[in-house]
């Protein structure tokens, strides 16, 4: 596009925006003056504008969240998969931030809840027995004020005293009762029943042992336990997910229920209870009483809370202004009269106080019912709308928790109608079973809610129950074997009590010994077995992840697709337990995809031209077929394809390679036998596996047959396939090596670059990423056994995990199928510091400073990460050019070993017994004596190297017979008359290379700073 045209577009676009939407079209038409393409361009931009509004709304990183590869260089599929599949718990455990500080207002809101719960608990524990009646406080039938008893609980003090429903009591007596409620005692009441007036005495007992052991007391305790559970889970939700508004709503709802529960203990909540506890509340320190009543008042808004939480579940519910508008404001307004009548007036005004007419309470009740009804409707609506199976499970779980309780409570409420037969049934059959079960039922709500919020991936409820029961049974069996054996033996002894002990031992001694040794074995192994049981039940999915991640690695090494495919299928079967799994392969020219490997019966072939295959080709990503889902798949696919999916029961289809001209393949998976859905993590690992398989499938079309060996030119190092006898370039003979030219099916050797103590370095081509790399093949005698291989892997991993501009980058490492251990590194051009020293003798000061600074900063960074190099020497420093400047890179960090391990191993010898790692002329005195390597050995070597670069000679060259030094001789004196040393430098090196470790610089950074100072001084002196 030309700049002028763009300018014109920009001008028209902004100008059009200034006008009203309906005038824009005309304006643009006019402005373009007949230039149709310009008009179209501007109009399409204007048309796109509203839709682009949300585009790039959140920054790229947030949008891409969590998909960076582990390492910028080695972003392998496997690393990628691992990165993505971290278990949330693990990840947060690593970062150490599982609990977070909730926002201030939540802490503020929790005060009334906690105060209220505290008061109710203490009242329940230490207060007197509740009177057990329900009073209608405003039923004033005369000026004196008579209050009607609307209900009397069975076996309650009120019932014992002879009160009946419909009795009238004067406010005067009630106020007296309210003002002096002794913990236990008698209160006389005037009672009007019909036309007669009598006097009854209410006797309330304190809560003694008898009370707590009775059904009432136990029920109260259980409900208190429930209430505590609610509050604790509310707290956990808030602390674990303070930013998640769903969790906040859930926490508020649970807290509301949690505070409300103890009030139901007295069976008759509300004004009568408040009348009894009024004295206690008013005698609390100033301010605490209202806070407690505020807590109760917030609980009255339970239905609003339920609406806020359930209405949006499992997505984010109402937030911000809408939350206030739809829940809290109406909730507060309509419940004020209810709160006043139920809580505030009985406490602060008494029975003679002002009266809130009953009609004012109606909106509160009506709105409460509306909220509850709306919650149910929205919950059902959401359930229909959600397609993700896991979300549906979460919703079902919450609905189960609430549904069971709502049903039970509704039934309970319905039976409290004053119809004699129903009431009889209620007391005789319902209450005895319902009451003990109620605490359990009630506990379902918080458990289900918290679980559904905190766990994002879950089993179906019935699977959970089944698994739980199986686990409990297995654990119980294991734990009960010892006591059961002991019991059997004891019973046996007792039943044969008349026989002498010798007789018993003779007859069944062997049996006893076997039982005892079995029990002993069990006792010893119990912990292990219990752990195994735990793993079996709960850690299976960790294993699954491990297995599948290993598959990605295996596939990379496999030679043919068929071989890899059967391995993949067996591993998928072992880790995910699908009902079936298989690969369907389509050869070019064939009519259909046929099954090549599968567990159980092979699925029928799919026609290659079917809509299903076309769709997967188009999407190029896994396709889910969830049965019974009114999804778009049902609309997209023709009937025969749907039938096919239904018959095979395939749940997921993963494309391996589709759309190419070569062989195509699809991985078909049935549902898991555990009925658990495939999680996002499963799908991502499976995608990674199919991705690797795709490479294999493509490669297997072009790869030459495996070679039996390769030739390497003895003089120039060029590598050839077997069969070539003479080097093309210099006609020298080739030495044959018994390995394939392509290492690990990925790195094709081109030229030998050098040989060292560790192994041989080749220039190779990475056939997957099409780039040149350096591959170091470790000498086989350095890798004598599996121990060495394991150590190599560990160390290579440490090196690969450390990147620094002055350290050669390690791309990959491993042990190839033919046993060669290798490290793949960036290919550098340049020469080693040793070569440079041989060529130039001495280097100039500025260059020395640059090289030492680079190497030193890398060493310092490595030391920060507890990595030691242990073999710093000019041969291991490579000088390369980058952006016109010389950069020194350290090679061979592969020898490093973490300091932490070193400490753990104490003074164990280094890599193999009797072998000292390092090169003698660069080894510090204490290292020669055999003390474990520390940072100081790297710094020492750096100092020796710096000396060598500055002077061209080794600091101890004059007298060094290293073998003698090693065998206990004196460490030589510094070669102080080396050329080019000023007094300052000499002092510096005398310090840095002192036999006494305490005189030397402590860290690589300190070494650098001191060297810089010394060199600057030298420059100054010269000037």
């Amino acid at each position, binding site marked *: 596009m030309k700049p002028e045209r763009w300018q014109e577009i920009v001008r028209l676009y902004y100008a059009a925006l200034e006008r009203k939407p309906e005038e824009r079209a005309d304006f643009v038409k006019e402005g373009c003056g007949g230039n149709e393409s310009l008009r179209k361009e501007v109009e399409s931009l204007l048309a*796109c504008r509203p839709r682009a509004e949300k585009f*790039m709304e959140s920054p790229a*990183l947030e949008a891409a*969240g969590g*998909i*960076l590869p582990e390492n910028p260089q080695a972003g*392998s599929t496997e690393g990628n998969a691992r990165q993505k599949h971290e278990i949330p718990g693990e990840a947060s455990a690593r970062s150490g931030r*599982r609990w977070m500080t909730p926002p201030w207002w939540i802490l503020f809101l929790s005060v009334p809840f906690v105060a209220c719960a505290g008061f109710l608990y203490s009242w329940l524990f230490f207060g007197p027995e509740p009177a057990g009646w329900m009073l209608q406080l405003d039923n004033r039938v005369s000026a004196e004020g008579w209050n009607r008893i609307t209900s009397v609980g069975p076996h309650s003090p009120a019932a014992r005293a002879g009160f009946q429903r419909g009795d009238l009591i004067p406010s005067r007596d009630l106020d007296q009762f309210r003002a002096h409620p002794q913990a236990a005692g008698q209160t006389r009441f005037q009672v009007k029943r019909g036309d007669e007036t009598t006097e009854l005495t209410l006797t309330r007992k304190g809560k003694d042992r008898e009370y707590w052991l009775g059904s009432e007391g136990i029920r109260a305790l259980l409900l208190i336990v429930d209430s505590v559970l609610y509050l604790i889970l509310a707290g956990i939700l808030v602390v674990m997910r303070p930013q998640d508004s769903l969790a906040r709503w859930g926490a508020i709802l649970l807290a509301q229920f949690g505070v409300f529960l103890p009030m139901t203990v007295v069976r008759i909540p509300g004004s009568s209870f408040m009348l009894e506890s009024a004295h206690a509340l008013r005698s609390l320190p100033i301010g605490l009483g209202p806070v407690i009543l505020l807590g109760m008042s917030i609980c009255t808004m339970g239905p609003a809370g339920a609406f806020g939480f359930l209405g949006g579940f499992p997505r984010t519910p109402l937030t911000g202004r809408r939350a206030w508008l739809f829940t809290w404001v109406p909730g507060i307004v309509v419940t004020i009269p209810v709160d006043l009548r139920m809580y505030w007036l009985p406490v602060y005004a008494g029975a003679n106080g002002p009266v809130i007419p009953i009609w004012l309470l109606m909106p509160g009740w009506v709105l409460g019912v509306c909220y509850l009804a709306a919650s149910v409707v929205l919950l059902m609506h959401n359930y229909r709308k959600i397609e993700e199976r896991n979300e549906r499970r979460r919703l079902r779980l919450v609905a189960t928790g609430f549904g069971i309780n709502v049903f039970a409570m509704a039934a309970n409420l319905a039976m409290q109608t004053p119809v004699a037969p129903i009431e009889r049934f209620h007391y005789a059959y319902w209450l005895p079973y319902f009451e003990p079960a109620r605490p359990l039922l009630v506990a379902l709500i918080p458990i289900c809610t918290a679980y559904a919020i905190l766990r994002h991936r879950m089993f179906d409820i019935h699977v959970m129950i089944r698994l739980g029961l199986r686990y409990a049974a297995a654990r119980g069996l294991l734990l009960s074997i010892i006591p059961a054996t002991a019991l059997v033996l004891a019973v046996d002894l007792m039943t044969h009590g008349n026989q002498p002990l010798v007789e018993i031992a003779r007859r069944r001694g062997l049996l006893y010994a076997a039982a005892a040794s079995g029990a002993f074995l069990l006792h010893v192994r119990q912990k292990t077995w219990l752990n195994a049981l735990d793993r079996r039940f709960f850690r299976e999915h960790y294993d699954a992840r491990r297995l599948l991640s290993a598959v990605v690695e295996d596939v990379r090494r496999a030679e043919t697709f068929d071989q890899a495919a059967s391995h993949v299928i067996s591993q998928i079967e072992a880790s995910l337990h699908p009902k079936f799994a298989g690969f369907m392969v389509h050869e070019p020219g064939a009519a259909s995809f046929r099954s090549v490997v599968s567990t159980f019966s092979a699925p029928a072939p799919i026609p290659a031209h079917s809509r299903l295959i076309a769709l997967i080709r188009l999407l190029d990503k896994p396709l889910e077929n969830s049965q019974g889902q009114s999804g778009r798949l049902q609309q997209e696919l023709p009937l025969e394809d749907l039938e096919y999916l239904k018959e095979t029961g395939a749940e997921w289809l993963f494309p391996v390679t589709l759309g190419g001209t070569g062989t195509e393949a699809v991985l078909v998976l049935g549902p898991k036998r555990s009925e658990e859905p495939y999680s996002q993590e499963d799908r991502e690992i499976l995608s990674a596996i199919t991705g690797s398989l795709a490479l294999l499938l493509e490669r297997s079309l072009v790869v030459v047959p495996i070679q039996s060996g390769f030739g390497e030119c003895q003089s120039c190092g060029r590598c050839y396939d077997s069969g070539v006898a003479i080097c093309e370039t210099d006609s020298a003979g080739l030495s044959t090596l018994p390995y394939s030219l392509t290492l690990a099916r990925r790195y094709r050797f081109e030229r030998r670059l050098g040989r060292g103590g560790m192994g041989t370095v080749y220039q190779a081509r990475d056939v997957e990423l099409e780039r040149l790399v350096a591959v170091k093949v470790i000498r086989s005698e350095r890798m004598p056994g599996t121990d060495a291989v394991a150590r190599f892997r560990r160390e290579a991993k440490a090196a690969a995990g450390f990147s620094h501009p002055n350290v050669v980058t390690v791309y990959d490492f491993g042990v190839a199928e033919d046993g060669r251990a290798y490290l793949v590194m960036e290919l550098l051009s340049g020469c080693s510091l040793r070569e440079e020293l041989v060529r130039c003798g001495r280097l100039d000061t500025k260059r020395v400073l640059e090289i030492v600074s680079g190497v030193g900063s890398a060493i310092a960074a490595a030391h920060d990460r507890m990595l030691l190099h242990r073999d710093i020497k000019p041969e291991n420093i490579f000088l390369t050019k980058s952006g016109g400047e010389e950069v020194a890179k350290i090679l061979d960090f592969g020898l490093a070993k973490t300091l932490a391990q070193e400490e753990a191993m104490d003074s164990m010898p280094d890599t193999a017994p009797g072998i000292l790692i390092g090169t003698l002329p660069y080894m510090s005195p204490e290292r020669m004596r055999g003390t474990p390597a520390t940072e100081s050995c790297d710094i020492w070597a750096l100092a020796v190297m710096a000396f060598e670069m500055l002077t061209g000679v080794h600091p101890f060259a004059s007298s060094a017979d290293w073998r003698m030094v090693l065998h206990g001789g004196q460490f030589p004196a510094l070669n102080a008359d080396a050329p080019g040393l000023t007094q300052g430098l000499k002092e510096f090196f005398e310090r840095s290379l002192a036999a006494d470790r305490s005189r030397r610089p402590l860290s690589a950074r300190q070494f650098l700073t001191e060297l810089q100072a010394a060199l600057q001084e030298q420059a100054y002196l010269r000037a």
Partner: protein
Amino acid sequence: MAGVPSHEVTQLLQAWSAGDRAALDRLIPLVYDELHRLAHSYMRREHAGHILQTTALVNEAYLQLVDTDKVKWHDRTHFFAIAARLMRRILVDSARSRSAQKRGGKICRVSLSDSVVFASEPDADLIELDDALTALAEVDARRAKVVELRFFGGMTLEEAAEVLNVSADTVWHDWDLAKTWLFREMKHRAKR
């Protein structure tokens, strides 16, 4: 990188601000590494419920790398501009490498339409956006820069305005047009 001394970055930053192009070449790998490292640690924390925020990330990188007492405000905005460019590179590079591994280099073109099946392919979208943004930069460098600063650098209008030395209002207008144009461009490309 923990081993990079802050004075080094500070000096490079000052040198670059003073017009030394070579300083930028040396600065970039240092900042790139640090941003990359931070992006990772941020993502780990995100698992624990943290909200991922580019601004916080870039700020942290700044505090880690630069000796804040020694730089002028002007240098600071320069740093943030580099950071935005590097964040673009980090994200797009990683999207590309993943994409390449997934399907042997072939980038699947996916539309941004609301269709359930076609959406949720952040990698391809990001690569597509990067291409479109490069195209935009050819005709209108400033608006492309605005997108880089806002979308990849997570900057507010005011911050971007400061870097570009224009008013926040201008940035808003630029952002509006650039966003619309990119959106349309990506839809076009997806159809092709």
